[in-house]
């Protein structure tokens, strides 16, 4: 058993950390967040040049052929720096669907461009009024010979504002859920971009008989969607752990600096004990994030493990996020300080791909199926 990154993985992490910590401080991040795009194309280009964007894709498609552990390393740094670049939303998540479901031609067309940073995808799957995990979508796909048209509403589509191509899920005429490639500028497609509370971007997408190409052969893609979501949940857990590390560090250094009643806050045991609790929650979140990633690296794709990780990581994030702001006092609720932005991002992640209650519901539904709770794959 080994929980450490190897030398190459550690180098990757250090490189991404250097790049992002050089690119972002509170001011530059706020500036970028104010821009229309909400993220920085120069940083994107550098991520592409480092191979970060192509990381999880096969070498034959211009990727780096790396695995979940490398993705975790990158996502942790994105979380640590609170970097707004949509690596998961526009590349890793939809890219995995293309890699798994797409035809050879689609893969060779799309994945090299994703890896180079020249193509941006978004996965349009969630629909108004539905919650994870949903196994059905209301958007329909209609077939006419070899061509398809889609109708329905998708929201939220994370980073659907900037994507040039959408991967859209829709109900197949013969049952099951198919995946489709849709040009973001296609006729009949209305896209309403918006800002999310964590200063990211999203869009609502309405499709009215929009021309679409099926991703792959048009078969049911439910399993591939679940697999992609399990990978994305692990990635979000890793991003959270990075953000939690920063939150704990910012808070402890604030406790040491900030004086009240003539002494640093760190002299008050009530506060140091709460900081200790934050540290404990951080380590528990790290452990579960590692579990989710390492299981995937061992070839175990198990939504239950993803739920376990996302539940614990969510619990840790909620508490650490709130405590961090509380211990910063008034400055914690201003946009001029980072700590509140971390809380906002953590809250957004909690509500993506299943809330804590959603995951607890999954786990509670399964308690009768086994006697002892055990680590899978050990």
């Amino acid at each position, binding site marked *: *058993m*080994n*929980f*450490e*990154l*190897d030398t190459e*993985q550690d180098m990757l992490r250090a490189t991404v950390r250097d790049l992002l910590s050089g690119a972002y401080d509170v001011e530059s991040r706020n500036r970028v967040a104010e821009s229309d795009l909400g993220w920085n194309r120069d940083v994107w280009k550098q991520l592409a040049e480092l191979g970060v964007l192509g990381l999880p894709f096969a070498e034959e498609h211009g990727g780096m052929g790396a695995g979940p*552990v490398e993705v975790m390393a990158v996502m942790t740094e994105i979380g640590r720096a609170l970097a707004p670049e949509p690596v998961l939303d526009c590349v890793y998540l939809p890219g995995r669907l293309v890699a798994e479901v797409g035809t050879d031609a689609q893969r060779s067309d799309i994945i090299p461009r994703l890896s180079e940073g020249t193509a941006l995808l978004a996965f349009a799957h969630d629909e108004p009024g539905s919650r994870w995990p949903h196994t059905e979508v209301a958007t329909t796909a209609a077939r006419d010979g070899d061509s398809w048209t889609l109708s329905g509403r998708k929201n939220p589509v994370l980073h659907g504002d900037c994507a040039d191509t959408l991967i859209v899920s829709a109900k197949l005429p013969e049952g099951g859920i198919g995946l489709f490639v849709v040009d973001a500028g296609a006729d009949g497609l209305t896209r309403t971009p918006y800002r999310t509370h964590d200063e990211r971007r999203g869009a609502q997408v309405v499709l009215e008989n929009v021309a679409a190409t099926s991703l792959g052969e048009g078969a049911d893609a439910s399993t591939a969607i679940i697999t992609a979501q399990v990978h994305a949940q692990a990635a979000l857990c890793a991003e959270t752990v990075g953000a939690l590390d920063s939150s*704990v560090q910012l808070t*402890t250094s604030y*406790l*040491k600096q900030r004086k009240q009643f003539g002494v640093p806050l*760190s002299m008050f*045991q009530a506060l*140091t*004990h709460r*900081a*200790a*609790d934050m*540290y*404990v929650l951080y*380590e*528990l*979140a*790290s*452990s*579960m994030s*590692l*579990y989710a*990633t*390492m*299981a995937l*690296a*061992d070839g175990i794709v198990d939504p239950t493990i993803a739920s*376990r990780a996302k*539940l*614990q990581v969510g619990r840790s994030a909620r508490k650490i996020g709130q405590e961090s702001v509380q211990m910063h006092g008034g400055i914690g609720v201003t946009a001029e300080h980072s700590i509140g932005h971390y809380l906002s991002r953590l809250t957004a992640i909690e509500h993506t791909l299943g809330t804590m209650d959603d995951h*607890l*519901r999954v*786990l*509670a*539904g*399964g*308690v*009768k199926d086994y*006697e*002892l*709770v055990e*680590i899978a*794959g*050990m």
Partner: protein
Amino acid sequence: MNLKLTEEERAFRDELRTFFTTEIPADVRAKTASGTPLGKDDYVAVQRILHSRGLAVPNWPVEWGGQDWTPMQRNIWLSELQLASVPDPLPFNASMIGPVIAQFGSQEMKERFLPATANLDIWWCQGFSEPEAGSDLASLKTRAVRDGDDYIVNGQKTWTTLAQHADWIFCLVRTDPNAKKQAGISMLLFPMDTPGVTRRPIKLIDGGYEVNEVFFEDVRVPAENLVGEENTGWTQAKFLLGNERTGIARVGATKVKLARAKSFAAETRLGSGSLLDDPIFAARLAELENELLALELTQLRVVAGSADGKPNPASSLLKMRGSELQQAATELLVDIAGPDSLPAGEADIDSPDWARLTTPTYLNNRKVTIYGGSNEVQRSIIASSILGL
């Protein structure tokens, strides 16, 4: 990164699992699983079986009966012990005084005590805490004054666990009253039947007797029973307490409790189904299981990353969370038992035995966040040694 145990580790685990579930008396394991207090004979019998296979004191030096195991093997051993509901080797012997004598004792002292300690021929108790020296252990007042070849000990200890069974005590005493707190302390070993030693059992809220007050009145202890040098007792105490904290998470034991909780909940009628079908109960159970799994993974991270078995400050985390989850599991069992937990004494009534044991166990388990360095002390350790606060 790799989550899997090696082939060798798996074989090791399977071998231990078989041994523990076939060679350790089933009645003792059943008592341990249900929280029924064990008798002295149970502890002695189990420890001797374990010791005969080199499984009682694996953390000791090999020449004194230890094993040259990796931290992962030690963790597997502990985990399998708990999963099989085998009582731990007596902690006062196996993880407290034994390692201290092996580390600090003279050759004569090692030969005299270590084999008997490993085999539980001597039952030790720990004379550390005093009425005014709990978490602030260095405030202890029990005095030892040199008189020729002996020390004369006067004072009082408290919370002396299972002292009613003990043959010998390892005792912290103040040998230099003028030195600063920690600097004037020594460790003495002496038999509990030495003239001047008296014990008073303290009844606990579960109705049982587990801890005692121990009084010393002009107790004469030969100077050869001093561990290491005079006034170095604090070093030995810190060494001992560091060992005490590792393995205190008791993840395996809590897993067994939760598995029992499931089976009892499945037998408890609720509406047209069982308590286990209730979504609120299932959610509470699932949450606990998940927290336990997060703790287990954290423990494995510490084990897999521990170099040379050096104490890791994260062991405070394991102690804190481990004790909280032990308590949460006992609390869950009490709540499953509900009204059946109320009858305490009588055997011939219709409340099942397990249900009537839940409240005493729950009440008794309030201790786990207090002993071994209270959880408040652990928070202070984390704040200072990990966060630098």
